[in-house]
């Protein structure tokens, strides 16, 4: 068997555009997931009326215990039943961010609850109120604890964008499959697509490591 990648050259602009779509969806979804997870994680750590906690719990459990693919189908094909019609990209970003947001909110919650009880006691003794303790003492420490895991979700998110190909979005996986259909060279095309994903996720991983190292100077 001989490998020949030269047939891919005419497709390079198409692949580059697809990679951009993948990255855009990945980054947007991650940022949104981050917002969702901090909001939900913080709310679920606080003393809120039980109904709020209950509803947030339902959200987290539903999104963690059903397949992402089904969630994407539901948001794109199911919601129009209720008059909510979304573009494929919007549906993809909403699906990905709600899905990862559910997982990540548990990371945030765990990080908040792992901040030492002594920190609260010391702060209360000094005169901090509950809100100040949370904002100034607990959150910065929880952020440090959660950061590496949250950043892991960023790379996972980029890989998960391949699932949104089912919504006819011209992202990497879908474009790859289209090229395969035309050229019938699965090995070359999928190894190329895989390499592009690798470069993107590995760059993100390096970026994350850099953020952890440069962004946080203190150690517990």
């Amino acid at each position, binding site marked *: 068997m001989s490998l020949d990648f030269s047939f891919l050259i005419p497709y390079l602009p198409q692949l580059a555009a697809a990679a951009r779509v993948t990255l855009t969806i990945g980054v947007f979804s991650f940022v949104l997931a981050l917002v969702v997870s901090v909001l939900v994680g913080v709310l679920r750590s606080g003393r809120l009326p039980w109904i709020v906690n209950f509803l947030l719990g339902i959200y987290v459990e539903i999104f963690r215990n059903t397949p992402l693919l089904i969630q994407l189908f539901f948001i794109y094909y199911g919601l129009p039943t209720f008059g909510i019609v979304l573009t494929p990209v919007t549906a993809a970003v909403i699906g990905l961010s709600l899905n990862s947001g559910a997982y990540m909110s548990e990371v945030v919650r765990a990080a908040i609850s792992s901040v030492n009880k002594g920190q609260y006691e010391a702060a209360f003794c000094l005169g901090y109120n509950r809100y100040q303790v949370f904002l100034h003492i607990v959150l910065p420490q929880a952020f440090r604890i959660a950061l590496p895991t949250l950043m892991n979700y960023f790379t996972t998110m980029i890989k998960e964008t391949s699932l949104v190909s089912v919504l006819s979005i011209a992202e990497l996986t879908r474009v790859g499959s289209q090229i395969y259909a035309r050229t019938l060279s699965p090995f070359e095309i999928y190894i190329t697509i895989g390499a592009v994903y690798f470069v993107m996720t590995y760059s993100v991983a390096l970026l994350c490591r850099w953020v952890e190292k440069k962004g946080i100077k*203190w150690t517990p």
Partner: protein
Amino acid sequence: MDPLIRVDRISKSYGSHMVLNDISLEVRQGEILAVIGPSGAGKSTFIRCLNGLEQVDRGSVTVAGQPVTSVTSVAGRVGMVFQQFNLFPHYTAIDNIAAPLRTIKNMPRPQARDRAAELLESVKLADKAGQYPSTLSGGQQQRLAIARALSMSPDIMLFDEPTSSLDPELAHEVFDTIQALARSHMTLVLVTHQMNMVKNFAARVLFLENGAIFFDGTFDALTTAADPRIRQFLKKIYP
């Protein structure tokens, strides 16, 4: 003169286990009270009731006439130093003092930093201002914790086994700091196992056992006490 701390018949249980049983005492302004006793005697719980970190089941605690209902009711007026320091790891040494001043007292940044620098100087940590707590030795961390508690200008300082997690030589540094406070007529209540510390500056010693006051008197009276339980305890920690 009215006592600064008045403890009136307090009791406290965890489940069915009674930790403090009907304790009453008064501490005057400037008095230095050491609380000793075997493990599980209720020493830590007792001191934590004085600033509301623990809620009493019965009885009452008042500080300068004000009832202690929760930790926030006397926050700032009663400083607390913990066995595990409980410094804020995300703040540098100077910010461990300056940040609370800014947040709680709304002090402008330059003023808070000046005050923090002064306090660091007073515990001989001026050269560590920019370092994070994790880079300091245990003794330095505890001195920083003392400086932080002092930043709120408390009337009373509580020490909950301040040197128990330190090597003897580092404990010494912390003793010196506490001793300096003692000389400045600050009211101090300290839970400790270190009889040297008690001997050096505590005028009054409280011996707790099974959640009750078993002895309340001077250090000399304690060491000459005839009670076999006290003698046995002292033999173990002050041979």
